[in-house]
């Protein structure tokens, strides 16, 4: 049984440590906020200029001046702070954020990451992703293990334009949770979804996979 989106988010939440400042990307990464382990407190940063993101608002609390980087309405906490885009990326670039969790189209064994364009077909823009992967201390990717055609998204070398070179530290997919060993260009499986075998993972991965 492969993991659901919610289960992937819960697995990624295992990366959180008490006191961490964390930036969560759009999509499944946003769900990670729902699975902060007991006894652990983290502060969420949003690159549009906010530290201390609260839960989504109740309907009568919605404020168009209060959104996250995914342009979703959010709320503030008693210890939140707001700042400009330049100050926000000074925080990110300066290495002050402990962990970033974000999506990807491709990850290579050497840690390269691609997630912002498919030349000639799709141009989404890099937004803050290049700054996050360059500046944040630990970068965790959550994504589907393979693309729609069933081909591996974890590959020997990225074919798409890069978001960052040598930046990915860990990956969570529907098949399992992995550390990326950039030096040896291999995946180290920390945990696999129930019933998923190492062989299944190896078949669907473009680089060697070892068990932790």
């Amino acid at each position: 049984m492969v993991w659901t989106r919610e289960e992937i988010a819960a697995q990624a939440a295992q990366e959180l440590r008490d006191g961490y400042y964390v930036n969560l990307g759009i999509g499944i990464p946003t769900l990670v906020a729902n699975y902060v382990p007991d006894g652990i407190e983290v502060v969420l940063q949003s690159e549009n200029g906010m530290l201390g993101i609260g839960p989504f608002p109740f309907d009568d609390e919605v404020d168009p001046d209060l959104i996250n980087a995914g342009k979703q309405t959010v709320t503030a906490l008693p210890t939140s702070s707001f700042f400009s885009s330049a100050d926000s990326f000074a925080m990110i670039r300066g290495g002050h954020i402990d962990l970033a969790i974000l999506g990807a189209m491709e990850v290579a064994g050497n840690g390269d990451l691609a997630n912002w364009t498919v030349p000639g077909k799709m141009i989404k823009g890099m937004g803050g992703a290049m700054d996050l992967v360059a500046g944040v201390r630990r970068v965790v990717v959550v994504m589907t293990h393979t693309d729609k055609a069933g081909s591996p998204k974890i590959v020997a070398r990225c074919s798409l334009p890069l978001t960052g070179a040598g930046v990915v530290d860990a990956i969570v997919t529907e098949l399992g949770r992995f550390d990326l060993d950039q030096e040896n260009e291999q995946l180290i499986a920390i945990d696999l979804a129930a019933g998923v075998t190492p062989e299944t993972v190896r078949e669907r991965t473009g680089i060697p996979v070892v068990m932790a």
Partner: protein
Amino acid sequence: MPKHKVHSDTQSALADVVFDGMTIMSGGFGLSGNPEKLIAGLLAIGVKDLTVISNNCGADGFGLWTLLNNGQIRKMISSYIGENKLFADLYLAGKLELELNPQGTLAERIRAGGAGIPAFYTKTGVGTVVAEGKPVEQFDGESYVRETWLRADLSIVKAWKADPEGNLVYRRTARNFNPNMATAGRITIAEVEEIVPAGALDPDHVHTPGIYVDRVIQGSAYEKRIEFRTTRVRGEAQG
């Protein structure tokens, strides 16, 4: 001068400073903190061949999208296209010049423009197309790419409140690029929801000192469109 900064409407504020081919910085992230009224003013004037520096380019029917749709924009300097189909289509069809910047590099280039710093080094984009053709250098054993400042003929920004000296205060995440852009325009025009009397803003809490603001207009009936209205339900387990 403080006493001359407040203008009655967007036309009076914009008319003598716009020209075809100019470069304009426009504040906002997504649809939050957009200078709605000044953008509408630019649409009404019809100034064209614009280079626009803005993180996004509005959204369907809103903000900078309306200038793009009206053929007034020649080139965008942005970080994100996302769901803006018109933006993507015009670019992919070769009808719009586009310079994509990492968002933090874009913000820092704008800050640098206002701060008299023609170039700086950043790790962001090293090893990607962003660094192609730019000097890359090692500091403390790591590679950094050199990026240059951005400045504009005109910056249009949206704040919450202004006083007659042009001191500005922003509200929540509607702040975003606005204070940085306010520093980097040869002329900066701010639109605000409320002009308050001198003395009403706490000098410790002014976000943009009036020195950066040449003109101020008070807007009304702000649309403040929301892209993704995301809520929770009372009684539901909290995320």
